[in-house]
């Protein structure tokens, strides 16, 4: 079994360990990922602020490329790990399916470049695929190194379940908790898990974002609350969220006179750890701080570099 794969720009930059761990996990579960040939930017949240039709056309070209790569009449599932890309592709898929004026314009533009979208390509998120296609039983079976009760805060951020709740509840999603619990983690109760980290503001966090102080404050609130609830690590599904929550803890501690030092990784990194995959294959070496308690050690035992 193999899926079409749309990486998105962040997977080649700040979110490289997302791509690495995703490929490692899918490989370990016997599922292939075929990267789209010559994919382009999805339009993210920046392009629709300038031109809605072109933003849709950007995503539409990717969907058309996915169909080209898998000729036939059946549906083509396109895995998009970045929650921002996932939402942009979904939004375009819906706009094109409704057959309105926008669909006609975008269809015409694709045609001008010899491309066609037939409505077969469907954006899917890897969390959805892992929980609903591959299944928790198979994932649990493959967990040779269970997470030993690691208290994880599962962070969904905005765009995985909003506005389109394709596979989970838009207010109280549970997929990630169920997935990580199946491999030995103990997800914490965390009502803030779909609250914005401040970084969907055009690709990027305080480093690139428009309002560094706002992003810093929003991300800090999430980390502080997760810490208060006993989280030992945070699992994310989006490279922008991951980046915001991981990279600026130092600035937050200085700004808000706090001591936060939480490992913030991709859910695929935690899952891959439980599957016994090599930490380098999971991109652990790319993290700014990544310390998980050793599940082999006694409860509350020593921290090791994981």
């Amino acid at each position, binding site marked *: 079994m193999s899926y079409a794969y749309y990486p998105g720009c962040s997977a080649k930059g700040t979110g490289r360990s997302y791509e690495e761990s995703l490929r490692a996990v899918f490989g370990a579960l016997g599922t292939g990922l075929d990267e789209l040939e010559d994919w382009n930017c999805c339009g993210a949240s920046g392009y629709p602020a300038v031109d809605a039709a072109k933003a849709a056309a950007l995503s539409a070209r990717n969907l058309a490329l996915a169909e080209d790569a898998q000729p036939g009449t059946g549906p083509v599932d396109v895995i998009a790990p970045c929650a921002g890309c996932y939402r942009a592709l979904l939004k375009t898929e819906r706009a094109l399916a409704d057959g309105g004026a926008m669909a006609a314009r975008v269809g015409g533009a694709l045609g001008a470049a010899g491309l066609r979208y037939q409505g077969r390509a469907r954006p899917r998120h890897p969390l959805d695929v892992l929980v609903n296609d591959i299944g928790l039983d198979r994932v649990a079976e493959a967990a040779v190194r269970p997470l030993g009760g690691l208290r994880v805060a599962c962070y969904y951020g905005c765009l995985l379940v909003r506005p389109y709740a394709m596979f989970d509840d838009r207010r109280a999603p549970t997929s990630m908790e169920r997935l990580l619990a199946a491999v030995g983690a103990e997800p914490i109760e965390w009502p803030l898990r779909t609250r914005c980290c401040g970084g969907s503001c055009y690709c990027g966090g305080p480093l*690139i974002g428009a*309002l560094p102080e706002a992003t810093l404050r929003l991300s800090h609130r999430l980390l502080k609350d997760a810490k208060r609830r006993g989280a030992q690590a945070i699992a994310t599904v989006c490279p922008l969220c991951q980046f915001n929550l991981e990279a600026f803890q130092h600035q937050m501690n200085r700004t808000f006179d706090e001591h936060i030092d939480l490992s913030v990784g991709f859910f695929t990194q935690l899952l891959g750890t439980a599957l016994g995959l090599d930490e380098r294959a999971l991109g652990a070496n790319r993290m700014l701080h990544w310390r998980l308690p050793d599940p082999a050690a006694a409860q509350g035992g020593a921290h090791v570099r994981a």
Partner: protein
Amino acid sequence: MSKSSPELAPGRALGAADRVLPQFCIQCGTCSVVCPLIEYMDHSPRVLNAMMTAGGEDDVLRSRAIWVCTSCYACTVECPKQLPLTESIYALKRQSMRTGVYPRRFITPVLARQFVRTVDKRGRSSEAWLSLSLYLRTRPLQLVRYAPVALRLIRRGRLPLRPESVRKPAQLRKVLDALDVTTGEHA
């Protein structure tokens, strides 16, 4: 008064811009309650709705609020009238770009335009160059503050300095250019 598009008829509440749901905002304030960015806005989402209903479109376009929106869709999901608020704010951003009416000395419109230019040229976004060019243009002194983080990312291979590009920029160009020809209301 700026030139209105049918997308944004004056005298309509934000949600009505979509014309899918011909309802009006009931001013319940749910959008403002759930908005995570409200403390950084000059007008709350509820007030923006009131301003739109009252025909104060130019004032709305000049407010920072629409550019502070990160499009997290919390308001859209919670609105009891199911008004497509986030999409309406996108429409306002586009109106703002088209008419050149936007808040002065505010960075987000610059960022959006820079982002679009990068994508138009290369087909992909480059986090390193986008942030660098933005900081150079708008607040070079801040570069110093975030340089240590950038260096750590570069060392870990997370901030490639060589910008990514699509292999067939001409094909992408054709798609985007085809949408330039019809300079309709959405262009």
